[in-house]
């Protein structure tokens, strides 16, 4: 009985040991994958200096805003658990509803911002596959009315 017990626990220990010793060093990014990764890092740059936006001295800021059909609410900060969202001051973004439109005013709108729009916050966590909804400088607007078949809860990401 004691021997059986040892065998069982030895087996789990053995599996752990095998996994630690398994040679996985050969697994590497494909040449195409490597190019894509490095290319993506460098093509992020909105400037002509060759410095990608992610390396700008000003920390990137991200907001996610929820705009339901009737009420309007917004949340700042960490919507995405995949990356650390920098702190954002409440004064950076103001939102107002005028008629059938909602208008977003960006306080530091002197520089261009990419705005993504989706009914899925997961999609916005990594918007690389999404087309920007708008290229905003200062402000942008969207219709409050939800269209048929569209979720009435819409999330925005402003980079």
């Amino acid at each position, binding site marked *: 009985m004691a021997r059986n017990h040892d065998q069982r626990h030895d087996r789990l220990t053995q599996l752990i040991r*095998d996994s630690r010793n398994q040679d996985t060093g050969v697994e590497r990014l494909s040449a195409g994958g490597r190019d894509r990764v490095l290319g993506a890092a460098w093509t992020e740059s909105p400037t002509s200096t060759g410095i990608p936006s992610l390396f700008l001295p000003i920390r990137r800021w991200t907001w996610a805003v929820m705009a339901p059909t009737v009420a309007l609410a917004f949340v700042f900060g960490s919507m995405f658990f995949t990356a650390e969202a920098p702190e954002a001051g409440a004064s950076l973004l103001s939102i107002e509803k005028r008629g059938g439109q909602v208008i977003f005013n960006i306080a530091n709108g002197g520089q261009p911002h990419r705005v993504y729009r989706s009914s899925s916050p997961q999609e916005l966590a990594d918007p690389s596959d999404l087309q920007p909804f708008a290229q905003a400088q200062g402000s942008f607007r969207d219709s409050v009315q939800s269209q048929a078949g569209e979720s009435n809860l819409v999330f925005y990401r402003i980079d």
Partner: protein
Amino acid sequence: MDDKQAKDDERDVRAARDGDARALESLLDRHQARVFRVLRLMGILLDDRDDVAQEVFIRIFRHLGSYDARRRFDSWVYRITVNAAHDHRCRHAGRVHLDADDPGVARQIHEEAEPSGGPDAGLAAAESSRELMGLLESLSARERAIFILCDLEERTPRQVARDLAISAITVRRHLGRARRHLRRLVDEKV
């Protein structure tokens, strides 16, 4: 990860933020084996791993500007890798299922596991890998990530707590539960 590597990371992150392309490549080269290893253990199949690894590094580099340099870089890599693996599995919930009895999956494990020791060593490694992956599939996502990081990547509960942004108590609780569960499964098999 030793202190030298941590210092190299620190230096490369700083250089990359200053626009040094070679620093990005160094970070990629230093961490890609770790990323692939964790993705494999998280159940990302061989055919998908290159894509998910690309996603991991794109996320890392894209957010390098907001990375807090007071934290260890490897910890950040672990977090993004685990999250990317989790996202991928959620997106492909029906497809990414490691069934040890599936001949295609078994062949893939065998091919991956066959080391330079030849076919016999490859078979033994494949069997071991298949058994472990089957066991890992029975854990919840969080238990699996914690067990992988603690017991297979040999990180301390305190480090894993930092990796996953949860408390060390939570790590220990889930780790204990995962180990008990796996032992029970092994017991049932014997």
